[in-house]
């Protein structure tokens, strides 16, 4: 069976797929790729099912060796991929020869780069998914980030590559940006007009203290006068919670499943992958939209992602 050897892991590299949705009653959040669109496209480029397990790298990539060779594709942020000393393009399949080495460096644009490998990565499934959940140490490879010397088993795959690459037009539609569209959160009425105004008119900056659980934002403080006490309830991916100190936290894929902070807004489904590409110190602006618009944007995006004729050239 083919394998991948981790020579250097990069800053934070984990095995991810599309996560495990449906385990709320156990307190288990979905986890999975922070940019699921990039993961899906990467997998499609190497002829995998869109939700196959791949590697998610964060800000700085690693070095990986393929003793038996492999067909790979890199999607998401550009970490400057090099195979055996030659720069390779993002967003298209490449055949790595036996013993070939893939080097990745620091990001040139966004937060996360995905390495998809034909056949996918084989790890034990936890609740039906290969996704690593770092907080609980479950899923992925022993529930942890990759380390030097780790060996990952790869699934069976054909060695030939199809010549397609992702269409620039499709990538342009799906590209990350720093304007996050949101719908009203369940406690929006507890925020004064002044606070809502500050939320929508002022840019925020992603704090260094951000991870897969959530993004903390620096900017105007949005504390509710009465402190915002509320009864703990279920919280959604992309929820914008406001802590008692007035700091917004946007919940990420490895989110807590319940919380007791009031939520002013929620990132729309069609922008969740963009949330996963924000880096510390990036500027973020919020743009309010309606549930109806959010839903139609999502349906359009899903239609695009399921149409190979539009996705690849």
């Amino acid at each position: 069976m083919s394998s991948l050897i981790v020579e250097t892991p990069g800053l934070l590299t984990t095995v991810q797929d599309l996560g495990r949705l449906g385990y709320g009653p156990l307190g288990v959040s979905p986890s999975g790729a922070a940019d699921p669109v990039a993961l899906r496209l990467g997998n499609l480029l190497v002829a995998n099912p869109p939700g196959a397990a791949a590697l998610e790298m964060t800000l700085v990539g690693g070095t990986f060796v393929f003793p038996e060779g492999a067909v790979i594709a890199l999607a998401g942020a550009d970490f400057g991929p090099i195979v055996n000393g030659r720069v390779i393009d993002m967003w298209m399949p490449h055949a790595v020869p036996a013993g070939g080495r893939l080097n990745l460096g620091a990001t040139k644009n966004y937060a996360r780069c995905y390495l998809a490998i034909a056949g996918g990565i084989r790890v034990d499934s936890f609740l039906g998914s290969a996704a690593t959940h770092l907080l609980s140490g479950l899923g992925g490879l022993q529930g942890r980030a990759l380390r030097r010397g780790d060996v990952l088993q790869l699934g069976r795959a054909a060695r030939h590559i199809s010549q397609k690459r992702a269409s620039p037009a499709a990538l342009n539609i799906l590209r990350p940006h720093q304007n996050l569209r949101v719908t009203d959160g369940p406690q929006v009425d507890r925020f004064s007009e002044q606070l809502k105004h500050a939320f929508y008119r002022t840019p925020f900056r992603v704090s260094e203290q951000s991870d897969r659980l959530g993004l903390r934002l620096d900017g105007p403080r949005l504390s509710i006068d009465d402190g915002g006490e509320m009864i703990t309830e279920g919280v959604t991916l992309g929820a914008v919670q406001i802590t008692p100190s007035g700091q917004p936290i946007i919940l990420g894929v490895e989110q807590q499943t319940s919380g007791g902070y009031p939520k002013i807004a929620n990132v729309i489904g069609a922008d969740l992958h963009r949330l996963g590409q924000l880096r510390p110190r990036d500027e973020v602006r919020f743009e309010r939209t309606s549930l109806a618009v959010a839903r139609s944007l999502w349906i359009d995006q899903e239609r695009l992602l399921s149409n190979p004729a539009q996705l690849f050239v």
Partner: protein
Amino acid sequence: MRFCAASDRALLVYLGEEISLPVHERVLKLLRVLQANPPDWLRNIQPAYCSLLVTFDPCVTGHAEVEVALREFEKRAEWSRPSKPRTVEIPVCYGEEFGPDLDEVAKLHQLTPEEVVRQHSCQSYHVYFLGFAPGFAYLGDLPPALATPRLELPRRRVPAGSVGIAGRQTAVYPFATPGGWRLLGRTPLVLFRGDRKPMSLLSIGDRVRFRPITRDEFQQRVQA
């Protein structure tokens, strides 16, 4: 019953506006009916004290349709009988390095540490729901005499098995996570294991009792 959109793919349904056993029984009954007859649009359910967060597939349905469906489920749930609660005993070694906040909590309430332990372990608690992290059970209600606010500054790392209190709630941390609850003790039991069936020691609707144990018993059970 009150409905509120949480996101473009999730609806919150509130079955009351307070933390109470009757409200929670309605939450549990609606959860059970939904779990027994999951509609094709259903993606996830997150129960809590008085609400359920229902996530759906927005390609298939929308908030208005989900609300109509949930009203129907709630009618059926009203007639369902709640299952008999299971009681789970959790051994706890209180105080010292296992419960670094025990003395402080005692001082705040002008009680002795022994009296805090007695009050914490002399009654049973209701599992309102699992949330925050895998297997983290929100247990209530703490005796009013022990109700204590969270720490001003949360700890960066609370050891797995730590038993904490916050407000009228108590809980056991299944994993080493950051946390702001005041820690009274620690259990040698493993609250959540991916390779065990069921994975979570506790589930929604269970009853929990804490039993004080000695350090020796704690060490023996950790090694076992």
